[in-house]
């Protein structure tokens, strides 16, 4: 069998730290090869070595069975290797055509010859069913479109080895399905694909083989068709993970949070980001607001918690009007908020763990006296949270939060918010960017809260999360609620239709 | 608390270095010793004014007599900083210290007691304790200048050269500036009489701008005067001159400089009403080394000792000649004119004039 990529015994060290430790990685021609691993397992480092961004200390690389030395991305490009990065590297005010051609312009006497390029791109886009408008500006097209532009960029450069770094993170289910199909089409044309991910569903759906890394070490390569998700996840994490979340029914009909006709208008654009939204969250219920990012979910939550001013509408907590209350008053009344951007809103990154643990409670008598902070009490409290919620960091309660891992940062926020014994927990994207273990943990915590009679309002763009955790799903599209669904009765595909605005069941609770 | 020691440790590092430095310093004594020292006042050594004029005298004498010399710049404008610089100069072996300007009055009052073996020369000031009562000890020489005579020369020369619309822009109404101004009016009057001009034919606009700075306001005022027909302005107030020269350059008119020869400053400067700073410092230093230092004296240097002058070689007169200058200078030396000073009259209008009409502008 012919290998297009052979990376033998690759080791990459940063100081004394081996990011990639004696990894051997081989990709056959014409296959989709998944590279699976948790955050920090070394996937990106390995691919960066292949793409010429890093030099390995040890090991050798062969491309198409010829030993090569890849010193920089240009070398990689010459060898036919292309990469779609997780964060697209596009110039916003360029057109699609300009973006694709950038760096590889055909010129004549110093003038651009765009027609040739346009023809080639049109041909490619037809061949691989990558529909694009070559004259649209990057800033005007959707994230999914931008990804197509990145893919076309690789194809335009005649790359045969394509690396996709977590390509589905930003896409809707429909777009993901489309991407999988495009990837398969490309392999049929003889291209080879490396697909970096930690989502097992997608590996199952698209990949032929899968190599697993864990903590920089190579664990093994398996044939996807004969390996179960559970087996792969065990390889990835090193222990068994349960995918089925056991939840007992404990929803009551008693509303904790009532949101009535909420409207939030953007000051600059004068557009209603949230348009006349009403719903209740009941005791013991996890209500999930699903939708594609940017359809008003963030504004809705910021409006409810008080970070954004409301244009109109009412908010009631336990039947008391808290519309006009300040953030602190809401906090005292029983709101807890796990914010969307944990580093921007949830934490003061340069404060220590213990200082962050009392971010909303530092002024309470148990933590201060006559304006002086009782550091001993704060320390004890932080220790308690660390023990109870298993927050790991290098220097315990004195660790500076900036230096903690994303998962532990999130655990700290969850711990702090839950420990305040609130009536409603509003969580936005609480598991974004976290590894499987941390996700599992946070889901368990949310469900545990629900079972003690709290209400949970969960905003998520991750359909697996939406389907698994929630008791009820509201779908938001362009600032309005367009669907009220029961997770047990709906499918991911149906959700996708609501999320893309194709389907709508008129919804009005009030 | 952990950060407590950040810079403390850094400082300790420096200190340990300087501990080594101390030994070094005693091994190799500073060879920057200087017998003749000058302390600058606020400005730089090349301020085209007091510092520079006095410094040139120091250099001239020291080069000629082969003495070591040096100038020191205080760290800030305060009496204590001046005194610290004097301390430093004494430490470096100064035997005589030149202090240009009245800012040194209080520091020298203290220094003359602190260093009885060191001689001090102060220009344009009297040592006092801050109460304006002059106390000139035996080791100190106070030098003043007869500004009214310098001003007289300037006014006389200007009118003799044919100017009839004159201006006087003083800085702040301090005695020295007032003396310049009064002398200027009287010089113009005498020249007008000699020329047989009609009464009031020579006009003098007279003001104190209230500062010694080059400011847009000063320039605007000068420009306005020039615009109203003033042909030459005697700019008598430090950097005020720069503003006036700027205005004159635009208006294609003339300026009379002050204190030192300012002809190099601008083409518009026809002459300068000079105090002979350089010569007076030179003379005082010579007296010191001839062991004839006139300690304890308050000297007023006038024309009889060549204390004031116009720099004729750099002047741009058309009619006023060297012979005219020598003649009038001789008369001043012989005290043929009774030139009134700041103590004699209340204001410029009080000066008796016939030919000259003074317009005082506040």
């Amino acid at each position: 069998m012919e290998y297009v990529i052979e990376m033998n015994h690759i080791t990459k060290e940063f100081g004394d730290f081996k990011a990639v430790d004696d990894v051997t990685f081989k990709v056959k021609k014409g296959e989709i090869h998944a590279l699976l691993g948790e955050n920090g397992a070394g996937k990106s480092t390995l691919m960066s070595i292949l793409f010429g961004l890093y030099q390995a200390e040890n090991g050798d690389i062969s491309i198409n069975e010829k030993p090569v030395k890849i010193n920089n991305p240009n070398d990689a490009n010459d060898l036919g290797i292309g990469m779609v990065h997780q964060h697209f590297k596009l110039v916003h005010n360029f057109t699609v055509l300009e973006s694709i051609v950038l760096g590889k312009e055909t010129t004549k006497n110093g003038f651009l010859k765009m027609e040739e390029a346009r023809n080639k791109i049109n041909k490619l886009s037809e061949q691989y069913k990558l529909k694009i408008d070559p004259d649209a500006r990057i800033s005007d097209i959707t994230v999914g479109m931008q990804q197509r532009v990145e893919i076309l960029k690789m194809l335009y450069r005649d790359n045969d080895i394509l690396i996709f770094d977590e390509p589905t993170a930003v896409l809707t289910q429909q777009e993901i399905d489309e991407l999988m199909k495009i990837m398969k089409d490309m392999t049929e044309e003889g291209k080879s694909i490396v697909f970096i991910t930690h989502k097992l569903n997608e590996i199952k759906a698209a990949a032929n083989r899968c190599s697993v890394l864990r903590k920089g070490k190579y664990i093994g390569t398996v044939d996807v068709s004969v390996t179960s998700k559970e087996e792969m996840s065990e390889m990835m994490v090193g222990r068994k993970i349960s995918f089925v979340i056991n939840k007992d029914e404990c929803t009551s009909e008693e509303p904790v949070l009532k949101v009535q006709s909420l409207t939030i208008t953007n000051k600059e654009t004068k557009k209603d980001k949230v348009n006349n939204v009403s719903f209740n969250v009941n005791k013991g219920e996890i209500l999930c607001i699903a939708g594609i990012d940017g359809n008003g979910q963030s504004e809705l939550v910021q409006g409810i918690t008080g970070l954004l001013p409301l244009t109109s509408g009412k908010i009631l907590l336990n039947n008391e009007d808290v519309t006009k209350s300040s953030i602190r008053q809401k906090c005292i009344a029983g709101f807890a908020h796990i914010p969307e951007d944990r580093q921007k809103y949830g934490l003061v990154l340069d404060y220590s763990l213990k200082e962050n643990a009392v971010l909303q409670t530092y002024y309470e008598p148990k933590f201060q006296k006559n304006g002086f902070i009782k550091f001993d009490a704060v320390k004890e409290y932080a220790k308690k949270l660390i023990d109870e919620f298993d927050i790991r960091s290098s220097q315990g309660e004195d660790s500076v939060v900036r230096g903690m891992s994303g998962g532990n940062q999130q655990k700290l926020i969850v711990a702090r918010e839950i420990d305040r014994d609130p009536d409603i927990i509003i969580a936005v994207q609480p598991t974004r960017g976290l590894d499987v273990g941390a996700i599992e943990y946070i889901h368990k915590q949310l469900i545990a809260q629900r079972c003690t009679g709290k209400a949970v309002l969960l905003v998520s763009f991750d359909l697996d999360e939406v389907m698994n955790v929630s008791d009820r799903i509201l779908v938001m599209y362009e600032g309005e609620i367009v669907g009220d669904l029961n997770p047990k009765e709906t499918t991911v595909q149906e959700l996708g239709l609501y999320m893309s605005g194709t389907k709508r069941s008129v919804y009005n609770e009030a | 608390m952990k950060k407590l020691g950040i810079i403390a440790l850094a400082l300790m590092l420096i200190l340990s270095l300087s501990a080594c430095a101390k030994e070094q310093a005693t091994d190799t004594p500073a060879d920057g010793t200087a017998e003749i020292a000058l302390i600058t006042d606020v400005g730089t050594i090349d301020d085209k004014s007091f510092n520079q004029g006095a410094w040139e005298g120091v250099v001239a004498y020291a080069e000629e007599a082969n003495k070591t010399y040096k100038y020191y710049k205080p760290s800030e404008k305060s009496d204590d900083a001046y005194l610290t610089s004097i301390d430093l100069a004494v430490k470096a072996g100064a035997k005589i210290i030149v202090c240009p300007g009245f800012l040194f009055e209080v520091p020298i009052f203290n220094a003359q007691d602190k260093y009885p073996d060191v001689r001090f020369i102060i220009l344009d000031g009297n040592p006092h304790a801050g109460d304006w009562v002059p106390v000139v000890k035996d080791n100190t020489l106070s030098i003043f200048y007869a500004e009214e005579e310098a001003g007289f020369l300037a006014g006389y020369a200007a009118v003799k050269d044919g100017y009839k619309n004159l201006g006087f822009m003083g800085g702040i109404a301090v005695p020295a500036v007032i003396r310049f101004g009064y002398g200027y009016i009287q010089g113009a009057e005498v020249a007008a009489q000699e020329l047989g001009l009609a009464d009031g034919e020579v006009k003098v606009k007279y003001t104190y701008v209230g500062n010694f700075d080059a400011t847009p306001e000063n320039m605007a005022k000068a420009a306005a005067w020039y615009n109203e027909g003033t042909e030459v302005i005697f700019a008598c107030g430090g950097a005020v001159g720069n503003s006036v020269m700027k205005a004159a350059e635009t208006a294609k008119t003339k300026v009379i400089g002050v204190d030192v020869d300012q002809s190099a400053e601008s083409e518009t400067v026809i002459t300068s009403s000079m105090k002979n700073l350089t010569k007076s410092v030179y003379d005082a230093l010579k007296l010191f080394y001839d062991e004839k230092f006139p300690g304890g004296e308050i000297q007023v240097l006038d024309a009889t000792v060549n204390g004031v002058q116009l720099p004729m070689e750099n002047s741009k007169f058309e009619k006023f000649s060297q012979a005219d200058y020598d003649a009038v200078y001789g008369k001043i030396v012989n005290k043929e004119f009774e030139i009134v000073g700041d103590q004699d009259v209340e204001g410029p209008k009080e000066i008796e004039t016939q030919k000259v009409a003074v317009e005082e502008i506040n």
Partner: protein
Amino acid sequence: MKHKLKFSLMNSSWGVSFISAAMAIFIGLLFGFIILLISNSREAVPGFFAILQGGFADGAKGIGDMLYNAIPIILTGLSVGFAFKTGLFNIGASGQFTMGAFVAIFIGIKWTFLPGHLHWIVALTGALIAGALWGLLPGILKAYYNVHEVISSIMMNYIGMYLVNILIVKNIHDKIKNQSLPVAKTAIIPKAGLDKIFETNNMNIGILIAILAVIVIYIILSKTTLGYELKACGLSPTASKYAGINAKNKIILSMLIAGALSGLGGGLLYLAGSGKYLQVVDILAPQGFAGISVALLGMSNPIGILFAGLFIAHLTVGGVNIQLYSFAPEVIDIIISAIIYCGAFSLLFKNIILKINKRSSRQEASK
């Protein structure tokens, strides 16, 4: 274990701050030495050591001069550093300093009806209040109208400077020297024998007041809920909003305190009885800008600022002493500026060290 030792200094936060401050100072000194070499290579070495020796060359008097020079810049440094901890760049220390100085002198000259032992205290308090008001205005503009404090406080610098010029001329003008009149003896800060100890007329209990200010600010920042709130606002305005902290109040309060510190600095300098008078000149008070360097070198930490202020004053005294060698006094200004300038890079070095550390700690965490 050996590995741990290697990084222990680099990992602790004070260690990082120390190393970066030391590096900044070292590079600044090196740069200064090069300038000395260029201007007079023969005496560069002794001259350089004279700078390093600074206030320690002259026994007690030298130290006294150093402390005198340090007082105003410690306070303006505190002012800038304190505001910076709250996320505000108080570039208006100069104006606040001048306002404080003026009010102190004004009270010192005019309010002679006050009993002697109260006079200087009232004058200093006046300086504090004047500075606070001058800081308050940019604070209000920032909090309620979102006017950037850098713009408004620069403007306040000029307004303060010209206003003080006008007020001096109208009220307390020494016409001959074009400066303020001398203050009454009772308004001079008591010397409490410090002038005897340090053998210089400059010294008074002002240095103790400055140290007290450092301690108070240190306690506010690190021990109180107010400090907790102020720092949170500075480090993350969004997170403090999320935490329900009233940022508007905190901005105003922070600028108020910062202004008060600068104003106090002005009062302390001009009531020191060192024969220094407020000049009627169109120049912004340089102490305000020196405060920015001091705050940067001290990394906005009050204790760091104390030592940074002393260090810069130490160099200033060294700069006077270097005149013993054959250097043009102007060269000294260049050298001191260069050292201060490089001192401002301490933050840069800190970031570099932290970056290196981050990399090495990532390895350790995964081991």
